[in-house]
């Protein structure tokens, strides 16, 4: 199987030769080609120049041997297209004038994805052409809670207190904002698929700061709209960090694959969402900072949790640390491929037939 077939099959819970692997934030980081580009271009220049963006996106596949090529794009690009000035810092996006009230929401611009975010779509087409079947092109979109939280907080924050306070203080404006974000996001993911994205990941990274009750009341319907926009055409990965308290609600909102971080044992999370979903995860990125032995040990634990069931996409539990050693990531992909093949071969024949 080539990388694209492998990743798509796993997302659909079909048989695979080996477990597919890719990493959140694999493009960029410490990859040598990327570091050379960054000497001459800002983050935004790379993200907005299709040829450069495709180069970084595909460079990760070359360098790491991953089965998925996640688009090198910031989740805030559609927010910028809505007329919000932002700056990308090492800590994350920073917004000088966060959303405070209904007037601020009303001021958000309509987005014409083809015109305003055409560079993303072109980068997808270029990446697809460049990669062929070596890896599946993964389009991305921030989840509605996460985007709203950035807009309200003005930047990254620990528990998204301002955003959660906003939803309680003014539920009407909250839903108006979420509706606007979901409108744009739904168009954005649909356009990415039309441009050639073979998988979409919706990163609702921060939804884990909510209780299940609040997720259902304030987020679920908006997330469901975004996820449903492309659910008929491509596999959709629905990811949130620290989602142990909301896992069932998150899965109920949609996603053919549910992405979990390292705080939940993968096996337990899979039982909770049900085996009719695929699952993605969940090596602790901190392992990469602890060296190869710790990385390998953690990766084997994740494979053991997945029990060779069809429908496991290997990933980190969260974004790769920016200073992660590319050689370590490459070795990790090899380990996942080699050892998952060996584990499949070792399965009793009947089980192997069932699990591919």
């Amino acid at each position, binding site marked *: 199987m080539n990388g694209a077939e492998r990743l798509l099959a796993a997302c659909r819970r079909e048989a695979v030769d080996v477990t597919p692997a890719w990493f959140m934030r694999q493009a960029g980081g410490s990859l040598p080609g990327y570091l050379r580009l960054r000497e001459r271009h800002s983050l935004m220049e790379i993200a907005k120049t299709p040829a450069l963006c495709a180069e970084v996106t595909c460079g990760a596949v070359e360098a790491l041997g991953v089965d998925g090529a996640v688009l090198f794009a910031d989740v805030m690009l559609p927010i910028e297209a809505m007329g919000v000035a932002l700056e990308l810092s090492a800590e994350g996006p920073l917004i000088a004038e966060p959303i405070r009230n209904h007037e601020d929401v009303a001021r958000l611009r309509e987005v014409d994805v083809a015109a305003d975010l055409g560079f993303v779509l072109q980068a997808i087409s270029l990446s697809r052409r460049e990669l062929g079947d070596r890896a599946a092109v993964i389009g991305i979109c921030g989840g509605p809670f996460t985007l709203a939280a950035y807009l309200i907080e003005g930047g*990254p924050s*620990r*528990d998204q*207190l301002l955003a*959660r*306070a906003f*939803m*309680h*203080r*003014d*539920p009407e404006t909250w839903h108006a904002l979420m509706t606007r974000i979901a409108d744009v996001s739904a168009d954005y993911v649909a356009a990415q698929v039309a441009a050639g994205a073979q998988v979409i990941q919706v990163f609702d990274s921060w939804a*884990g*700061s*909510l*209780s*299940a*009750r*609040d997720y259902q009341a304030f987020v679920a319907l908006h997330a469901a709209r975004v996820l449903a926009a492309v659910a008929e055409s491509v596999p959709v990965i629905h990811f949130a960090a*620290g989602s*142990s*308290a*909301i896992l069932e609600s998150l899965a109920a909102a949609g996603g053919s694959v549910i992405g979990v971080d*390292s*705080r*939940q*044992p993968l096996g337990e999370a899979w039982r909770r969402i049900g085996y009719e979903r695929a699952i993605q995860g969940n090596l*602790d*990125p*901190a*392992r*990469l*900072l*602890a*060296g190869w032995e*710790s990385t390998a*040990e*953690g990766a084997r*634990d994740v494979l053991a949790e997945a029990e060779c069931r069809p429908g496991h996409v290997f990933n980190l539990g*969260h974004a790769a*640390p920016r200073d992660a050693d590319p050689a370590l990531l490459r070795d990790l992909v090899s380990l996942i491929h080699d050892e998952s093949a060996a584990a499949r071969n070792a399965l009793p024949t009947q089980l192997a037939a069932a699990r591919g």
Partner: protein
Amino acid sequence: MNDRFLRACRREPVDATPVWFMRQAGRALPEYRRIRERATLHEIIRDPALCAEVTLQPVTRLGVDAAILFADITTPLGGIGVDVEIADGIGPLIAEPIRTRAQVDALRSFDAAETVGGLLDAIRLLRGELEVPLIGFAGAPFTLASYLVEGRSAPGALRLKGLMSGDPGTFDALMERLVDMTVGYLRAQVAAGVQAVQLFDSWAGALSPFDYQRSVEPHMRRLFSALAATIDVPTIHFGTATGGLLEPMARAGGDVIGVDWRIALGEAWERVPDRAIQGNLDPAALLGPWQAAADQAGWVLSQAAGRPGHVFNLGHGVLPETDPDSLKRLVDLVHEATVAVPVS
């Protein structure tokens, strides 16, 4: 003496559910902000009269059932030789984060009287004035270690977790030093008069259950058993985002398990049925219309379902923007909604 808080910690029947708030003394109160205009955090903590005054403010204004000593979780760290700066809006900053075994070995041993003498005097002053129990507290070692290793607040605690799995010897050595410090610090608080203690493991939620069990639980176990051997006050074991960790946290210790708003209190309690439970209204709910906050508080109470052993609290600290009147109404709501009908 109003002892419903201590009774609830012991899971004894109470006349009404006790309520207090994490960070009840602090920026939400105008009388606190006035003091902060003339004194820094460190100055308040070091001055027994000021510290006692600030600790008393919420008891007077809000009618809570317990006072919590005003201090910062990093307060004792000076005693082992770590300089901490508290930056407004950022939190603790540590100029030279700990990354090596040599740095761990260079930490001094903790002497409570020398490091936090003012705070201990404040406790003595407070016991003479308070009509409600006084809670002492400390940061749990993993949370303190996250500041020491990361140098600042770091969601995900990546470096600390990297140290934990990559250099367990250094990690364990650091945790051991912090356990020793924390035991000494809490013993001194109890000797001076605090009537309960809370351990804040605010960053433990960054761990998987497996990592917690392997790398943190043994240290927490040693901490709680060292406390149990020498002090006889209820212990509250609190962490945020601990939905995956409740069982091992409870195994490690704590008469009361404190949970944040992410998890339904009833579900949390089912998982640690032999403990009292503290929580867990979302502090963000208090920034909305009163009725919405009241509804959510009612939901928390319905989750507790009148079982003995519920201490009402927020799921995390009071937010500075909170209207003190909302806090006061919340205290009254909890009391009125749970007042026991006398047996005739």
